[in-house]
C-alpha cells in the first residue's frame, strides 16, 4: 500500500490526489495473431479522474476488460493497491472493489431501478441463504440498511421518480444513469466507465459530466473512463493516456496530451510526403 506516498499532491480545485491505486505494467493481449494491446504501462492514482482515449480499435475497451478480468493478458502484470494480482475471475475482482459500467448498457432489464441498484450492493450483503429464506431478523435488517445506502445514491442521481419503474422502459440517458448508480452502489475503490456519454445529447452529457465530477469529489472515488468526446475528456480528467493501434502514444495532463505531436497525428492523420 502506498496511499500516503510522498508524491501525493493537491489539484487546483482542492482535491487530493494520492499514490498509485493501480499500476498496469507491460500488458500485452493477443487474440490469435491479432495484437490488441502491445506492451502498455500506465498507472492510476488514488482520487484522480483518469481518461483513456484513442481512435476506434485502439484497444481502450480491451484494456478495461483486462483490468476487470474478462480478458487475461499473455504478458505483463497488474498491481492493485500495491499488490500484484494473480489470474482472477471478474466477480473476484469486483469483490476487491473495482466496479464498471458498459459501453452498451448492461442493466438487468426485467428488474426495477431500485432492484438494479440494490443488486450493486451484492458484495456488501452477507446474510446466509437460510436466513434470507426466513427473512425476519438478519436478512431483513441487512436489506433495510442497504436500502438506505441505495436511497442516498438514488437521491444523488436524482432518479427518485423512477425508483420502481422497470429499467427496460426508461429512456437511454436515464438507463446510463441507473447503470452508474449500480456501479456506485458497490462503493468501489476504482470505478471504470466505458464511454459513459456515448450517444447522449449535449444536455445529457453535461448532466453525466457533473455526476462524474461529483462522484469523484464527494465520495473520493477514483475513476478511469473511456470517452470519445474530446471536449469532455479534456475538461474533466486529471490525466489522460492515449492509445493507438494497441500502443501507448501519450500520457500526461490534458494540456500535455493536446500538445503531443504523435497524438495529433493519430487523431488528424499524418501526411505521407
Amino acid at each position: 500500500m502506498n496511499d500516503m506516498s510522498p508524491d501525493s499532491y493537491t489539484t487546483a480545485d482542492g482535491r487530493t490526489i494520492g499514490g498509485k491505486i493501480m499500476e498496469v505494467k507491460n500488458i500485452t493481449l493477443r487474440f490469435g495473431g491479432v495484437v490488441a494491446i502491445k506492451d502498455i504501462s500506465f498507472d492510476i492514482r488514488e482520487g484522480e479522474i483518469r481518461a483513456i482515449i484513442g481512435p476506434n480499435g485502439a484497444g481502450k475497451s480491451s484494456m478495461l476488460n483486462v483490468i476487470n478480468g474478462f480478458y487475461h493478458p499473455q504478458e505483463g502484470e497488474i498491481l492493485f493497491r500495491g499488490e500484484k494480482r494473480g489470474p482472477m475471475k471478474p466477480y473476484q475482482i469486483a469483490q476487491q472493489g473495482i466496479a464498471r459500467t458498459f459501453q452498451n448498457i448492461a442493466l438487468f432489464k426485467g428488474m426495477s431501478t431500485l432492484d438494479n441498484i440494490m443488486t450493486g450492493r451484492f458484495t456488501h450483503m452477507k446474510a446466509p441463504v437460510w436466513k434470507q429464506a426466513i427473512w425476519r431478523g438478519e436478512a431483513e435488517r441487512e436489506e433495510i440498511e442497504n436500502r438506505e445506502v441505495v436511497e442516498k445514491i438514488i437521491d444523488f442521481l436524482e432518479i427518485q421518480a423512477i425508483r420502481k419503474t422497470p429499467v427496460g422502459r426508461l429512456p437511454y440517458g436515464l438507463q446510463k444513469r441507473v447503470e452508474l448508480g449500480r456501479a456506485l452502489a458497490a462503493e468501489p475503490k476504482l470505478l471504470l466507465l466505458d464511454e459513459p456519454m456515448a450517444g447522449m445529447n449535449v444536455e445529457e452529457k453535461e448532466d453525466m459530466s457533473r455526476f462524474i465530477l461529483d462522484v469523484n469529489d464527494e465520495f473520493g472515488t477514483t475513476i478511469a473512463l473511456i470517452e470519445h468526446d474530446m471536449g469532455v475528456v479534456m475538461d474533466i480528467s486529471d490525466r489522460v493516456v492515449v492509445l493507438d493501434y494497441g500502443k501507448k502514444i501519450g500520457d500526461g495532463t490534458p494540456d500535455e496530451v493536446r500538445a503531443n505531436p504523435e497524438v495529433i497525428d493519430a487523431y488528424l492523420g499524418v501526411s505521407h510526403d
Partner: protein
Amino acid sequence: MFYREAGDYKTSYVDDSQTFPIALDRRIYMAAAVLAFLVVPFVMTDYLVNAIMMPFLIFAIAALGLNILTGYCGQVSLGTGGFMAVGAYSTYKLMTAFPDLNIFFIVILSGIITAGVGVLFGLPSLRIKGFYLAVATLAAQFFLVWMFNKVGWFYNYSASGQISAPERTVLGQAVTGANAAPWVSYLFCLVFVFALAWLTRNLTRGRIGRSWMAIRDMDIAAEIIGVNPLRTKLSAFAISSFYIGISGSLFFAVYLGAAEVGEAFGIQKSFLVLFMIIIGGLGSIFGSFAGAAFMVLLPVILKLFFADFIGWPTDLVAHLNFIIVGGLIVFFLIVEPHGLAALWRTIKEKLRLWPFPH
C-alpha cells in the same frame, strides 16, 4: 374505486417492501388463507379433492420450483419429471428403510436428496446455455427414469417394478396409504404449499433472488458486480430441485399411493410443469399458482362441459384439451411472455385508476 393505494402511506422501508403493498390485497390473501385452511377441508367432496385440489397443490409446488430455476434464474430445464421421480423414490426408500420416521421429515429429506441430484445435473449450466442446457436436462430426465426402471434396489426388487406408499400418520391421522382421509392429505399438502410459497417470496425478494435475476437478465453485468455465476446457478438448481423433490414426494406418497416411474414421472410431467409456468408467468409466484390451477382445471372443465353436459366422446374432449393448451402456449409466447401473472398485473393497474382511463 375500491382498489386504491391512496391513504395507504408507507413510512418505512419495511412497509415499502412488504409482500402485498395494497391493503385490499392483504385482506384478500388473508381471506384466501383462512378459506383454504379452515373452510375448504370440511366442505369439499372426494371428487374435488382428487380431481382438482390435490393435483393443484402438488403441481403448484413443482411450478414454484421450476419458476425459481427458469423464471428467476433463466436456466431452462426439461428434467422436472425426472427430479420429481427422485423425490418419489427417495420417499419410498426412506419410508421402507425407516418405518418410524415421521412422513413430514421424510418429505423434507426427499427434497434435500433431490436438491443434491439437481446440483449434479446443474453443473453443465456454467458452460452451456439456453437451448443446449434444455437438452442436457432432457438427458437427466431420460437417464433418471431409466435408472429407476432398471435398478431394482430403488423399488426394493418388487415384482411389478412399482413403488407403493405404506400407511404413515401425522398427529394420529393417516396421511398416506389406503386409509388416508382426503381432508388430511389436503391439509398435509397445503402446509407444504404455504411454507414453500412463503420461502419463495423471501428468497426472491432478497440478495439471492436478485443475483438469480441478474444472471438471467445479463450474466456479464452480474459478474462484474461480484456475483459468482457458478454458485448462483447451482443454488438455483439446488433450491428448485428441493421444491420439485417435495412435489414428487407428495405426488407419489400422498396423491397416487402407488406409482410406476415411466407413467407417473415421464417427459409429459416435465412439459406439463413447464407449460404451467409459461402460461402462468415466468418469474412470478402468483404465476406459478395461476398456471398450476389453469393446467389442472382446464381438462376437468372441458370434460364437465363437453363430455358430461353436451355429450361428446371423452377422447375427443381429451384431444380438444391438447389443442387448446398448444394454442395457448403459442399465444402466450407471442402476445404475453409473462403469462397470466402479467395479465393480472395489467388488470390491477387498470383497477387502481378506474373509472379513469389513465
